């Protein structure tokens, strides 16, 4: 712990980094600035074996942060489009992604809101979510924890498979399905409750379980009666984050770049 002030973005980065603990030598894909910096932090601290990319086509020896670069990174290998599928189908990847909707089963949606034939809101399309979800571990980041993100019922179009027995022969999800953590602006959750129920494993400083539950469309479990507080970044972690993100892109993710400890704010 530290007395150094830290932002919510930095708290989230440290929480995201935990996704890659004990994963071994996998491809680490963090979609969006905070998950990407989180993967870099993991690589530079407790998970040196993970492979991160330049965001395009090469693996790099050191993590590459978002925005302008001062020097060309050292390249370690190729991560072109074909090879990404080869790697992910083998299970040697852990992605931390930001869907638009997630439901109680961990089913995620980035395709469309409303009727799939004529959606109210058309988004990207399923991208690689279906294949990712049944091939390798996946974690999630949501910048706005609310009932539009964590919805009641099932997501409008299931892009990412989840723990919904009704969707599987004999109710058994495929072996590769492995949903890990969910980091939001309020808390960290995982799928460790009974029957993979989503549970709150830590609350960001100043946030209550009731606040999280009130902003979630389905009932949440708790890791313990007394839910731990999400660990604050250490001085060392803050220095490494600043090194990975010299452009301070992390300050632009949340409106007005709020403090990580809202009691201190």
């Amino acid at each position, binding site marked *: 712990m530290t007395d150094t002030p830290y932002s919510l973005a930095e708290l989230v980065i440290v929480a995201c980094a935990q996704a890659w603990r004990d994963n071994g030598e996998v491809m680490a894909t963090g979609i969006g600035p905070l998950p990407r910096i989180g993967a870099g932090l993991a690589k530079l601290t407790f998970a040196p074996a993970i492979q991160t990319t330049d965001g395009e086509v*090469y693996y790099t020896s050191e993590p590459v942060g978002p925005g302008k670069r001062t020097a060309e990174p050292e390249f370690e290998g190729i991560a072109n*489009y074909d090879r990404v599928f080869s790697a992910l189908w083998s299970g040697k990847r852990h992605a931390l992604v930001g869907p638009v909707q997630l439901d109680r089963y961990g089913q995620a949606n980035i395709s469309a809101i409303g009727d799939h034939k004529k959606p109210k809101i058309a988004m990207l399309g399923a*991208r690689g979510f279906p294949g990712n979800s049944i091939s390798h571990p996946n974690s999630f980041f949501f910048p706005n924890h609310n009932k539009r993100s964590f919805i009641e019922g099932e997501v409008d179009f*299931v892009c990412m*498979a989840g723990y919904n027995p009704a969707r599987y022969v004999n109710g058994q999800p495929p072996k590769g399905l492995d949903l890990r953590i969910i980091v939001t602006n309020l808390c960290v959750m995982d799928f460790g409750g009974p029957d993979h129920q989503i549970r709150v494993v830590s609350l960001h400083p100043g946030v209550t379980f009731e606040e999280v539950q009130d902003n979630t469309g389905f009932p949440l479990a708790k890791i313990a009666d007394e839910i731990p507080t999400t660990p604050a970044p250490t001085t060392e972690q803050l220095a490494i984050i600043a090194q990975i993100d010299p452009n301070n892109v992390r300050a632009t993710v949340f409106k007005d770049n709020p403090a990580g400890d809202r009691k201190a704010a």
Partner: protein
Amino acid sequence: MTETMLDKRMTVDDIVDQLSDGMTIGIGGWATRRKPMALIRAIARSGLKDLTVMAGYGGPDVGILAASGKIRKLVFAFASLDHFPLEPHFRNGRQSGAFEVLELDEGLYHWGLRAGAMKLPFLPTRVGIGTDIIKQSGFDFKFVKSPYGDGEELVAMPALVPDVALIHAHRSDERGNLLTLSKDALFDELLVRAAGKSFATVEKIVSTADLDMKANSRYNLVERAMITGVAETPLGAHPTSADPDYQLDLKHIKTYVDSAASPDAWADYKAKYIDVSEADYQAAIGGADAVAALPVPIY
């Protein structure tokens, strides 16, 4: 027996003349990389209609064809402008129900192309299990049980077999020996192998000797026997990139994004950038020098 012609040079309009209403057209590239945009613009100004467009990794190709009313059905995994994540004309088309869709996973699309390339009816996969991809109405996904001891139930991804593939590459000779010089060859090879016929626009047609295949053969996309015609089309991928020859034009892509704001905005864009000759298009975007000066994007 007809002797195969080894001079495959043609123009963009010659290629569009080979297309017909109702065809299934596969488009190569990825979002904002190496899309055959000169061909897309030519299709947009043609009389073609009711196309089934296969663009697994869609970008402004999908958007322009959607905004031009050319698409009857779209087979895709995503449509995005990458730096601008949401493709606005694709969105407008989807939200107005303007065309039918078959939405696939990126890997499932890859797998369908591979089945097509291998002349197999399908390839088994786990991809899609547990999702709404395999439950789409209007498409009856089938399953196969592994004939081996495990007995696993797998998705049978049908072959994707476009009538015609359209791709953009960097160099070719007149015989259709292609080089893609970009860092990532994407899945253009599989698309070409899966398609009935394939046409490529290329930045430059050079002599076979100038291809220097001894040094460059790893960038040789596919056997020339798979290529029906090549059209020399400098800047043919603009506003998407043909790195290392030129980068994506983010400023133009912003102009394109803004053109989705209203029918009038689209009419203005169309008048200036689509309903014109390729020479006038190039003048409108500032010419080859301006495109050559585009900065390398940061991902």
